[in-house]
């Protein structure tokens, strides 16, 4: 008797497990289905831009919303490259983003190291001041900053973009947090051996800080590459414009030549999508650990 009930109970438990298994499987299919629908919606704008950019303007005029065109062409891209502006904008954006990222990493890591590891008088006040800077969005400073650069005759140069991007409070906070995670004994032991603070920073702490360096580098680079309002205000000369500012002019230049407009959008979008494909892990980890936006 007891054996039978025990057996029945086991069977019931087994059956219960099987139904939850089924339910779990259905639920997983449901999740995957929803995700696929959203993913489809998410890729359509980019694919549609690419699709349009590869069609002759005549085909777009005749059948603007058909995905399939018999006559694929790179004509729009050829035209853009022949105009030559887009190469200049690429180069400008690249130089500005690179210089900003390098300077930001160097200046912010040095300050972060000094605050985290050396006990200089006043460092608490300094760190408080830097943390307060987190609250000030650069957008509210455009008017006085414009006056400042106008006065220094630096409008329409790379410097008007690079200089304000060097001292980023959040980058210092990231470096301080990261350096605090590296045992202080390393610095103390090196001090006993007679190493200078600069040497400890340069030879011990920096080589151990690749995740923090790449997070700050990538974010400063992406931020400056995509920055719009400030370059729009300060770069009015076509030869010095960054890619986003240049792109904002093309739609008026091309009117209803949609293939050309979409080709410039694709060329604008492409570099960072490629960078993202290559450094997906670092970028995602960087966001997850710092939450920089």
């Amino acid at each position: 008797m007891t054996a039978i009930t025990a057996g029945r109970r086991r069977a019931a438990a087994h059956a219960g497990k099987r139904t939850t298994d089924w339910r779990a499987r259905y639920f997983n299919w449901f999740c995957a289905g929803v995700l696929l629908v959203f993913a489809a919606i998410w890729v359509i704008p980019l694919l549609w831009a690419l699709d349009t950019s590869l069609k002759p303007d005549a085909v777009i005029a005749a059948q603007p919303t058909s995905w399939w065109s018999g006559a694929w062409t790179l004509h729009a891209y050829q035209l853009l490259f022949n105009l030559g502006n887009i190469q200049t904008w690429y180069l400008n954006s690249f130089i500005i983003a690179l210089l900003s990222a390098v300077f930001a990493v160097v200046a912010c890591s040095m300050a972060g190291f000094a605050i985290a590891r050396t006990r200089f008088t006043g460092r608490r006040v300094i760190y408080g001041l830097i943390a307060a800077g987190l609250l000030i969005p650069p957008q509210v400073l455009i008017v006085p900053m414009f006056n400042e650069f106008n006065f220094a005759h630096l409008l329409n140069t790379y410097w008007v973009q690079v200089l304000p991007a060097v001292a980023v409070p959040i980058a210092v906070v990231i470096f301080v947090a990261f350096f605090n995670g590296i045992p202080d004994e390393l610095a103390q032991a090196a001090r006993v051996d007679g190493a200078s603070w600069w040497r400890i920073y340069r030879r011990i702490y920096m080589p151990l800080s690749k995740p923090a360096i790449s997070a700050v580098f990538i974010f400063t680079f992406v931020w400056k590459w995509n920055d719009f309002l400030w370059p729009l205000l300060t770069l009015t000369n076509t030869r010095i414009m960054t890619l986003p500012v240049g792109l904002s002019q093309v739609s008026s230049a091309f009117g209803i030549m949609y293939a050309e407009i979409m080709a410039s959008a694709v060329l604008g979008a492409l570099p960072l999508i490629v960078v993202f494909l290559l450094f997906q892990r670092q970028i995602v980890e960087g966001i997850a650990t710092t939450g920089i936006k």
Partner: protein
Amino acid sequence: MSIQTIPVYADERATGTTGATKRRDESRSGWGLTAPFLIFYVLFLVGPTVYGIVMSFFNSSLEHSGLGGFAGPDNYTQALTSSDFWQSMWHTVLFTLMTTPPLVAIALLLAIFTDRLARGRWFFRLIFFAPYVVPSAAMALIWTWLYTPQIGLWDSWLSAVGISNPPNWLADPSWAMASVALATVWWTLGFNFVLYLAGLQEIPRNLYEAAAVDGASRWHQMRRITIPLLNRTTALVLVLQIIASLKIFDQIFLMTSGGPNYSTRPLLEYVYDIGFTDFRTGYAAAASMLYFLLILAVSLVWFFVSRHQQKGA
């Protein structure tokens, strides 16, 4: 983003001659290492902030050099009584109200679903995050084309399902803001999605197993375990999203230029217009400061809420 406190070292108050020289040397090195950052910080953040505050009390203009005549609080009273100022402030807030709920809720849902997958997570992460790295100007070109009346892709889809007379999305005052908001959801969702995925990673798997043994359904697990344990991530996502949305400029400037008839002009574009089209920089600085107070209020609320949360944890 949490700010760590710096420890006080025991020998900081240490006396003795060798200790004192060592301390002086350390202090000098510390200042030396901080100096490059501080120079830039003072020149391009502290300086402009102070200058901006000063300017906001003067009749500064790009048409003449120097600060111009002292205006006292006139710029502020003018801004606070200007209907254009309040309208653009309202557009900024409206845009934030329209974008924040979907950008948080959809990101959360998609992240929870993606987290359940046994494989292929990288694929969805790639798809949802890719638009985020597209420059605003490229995004605006693409979405303006999608929204183009009659020949745009969206209108062709709508006519396929029988809606033959849709509004002119970006040129209709009652639809323009919603259209830009929708494009923004597509553009920036990936950032919140990635933050949520990271938050989900920290939930121990055995909690789910324990719940499953107790017979909790997936839906229950999600409501009773996943979402409550993500509270801190949600607080972070929410505040970052509100602040990012309040900074709206690019998309509206590029897609509607603040139109039609100023019906979408956000505050930053108002500052841009009065400062750089009308050249009234003093007044523009005052409007910026009022806008800054709004963002500051959001940051401070978050600061106190998260401190409260930390104490509770």
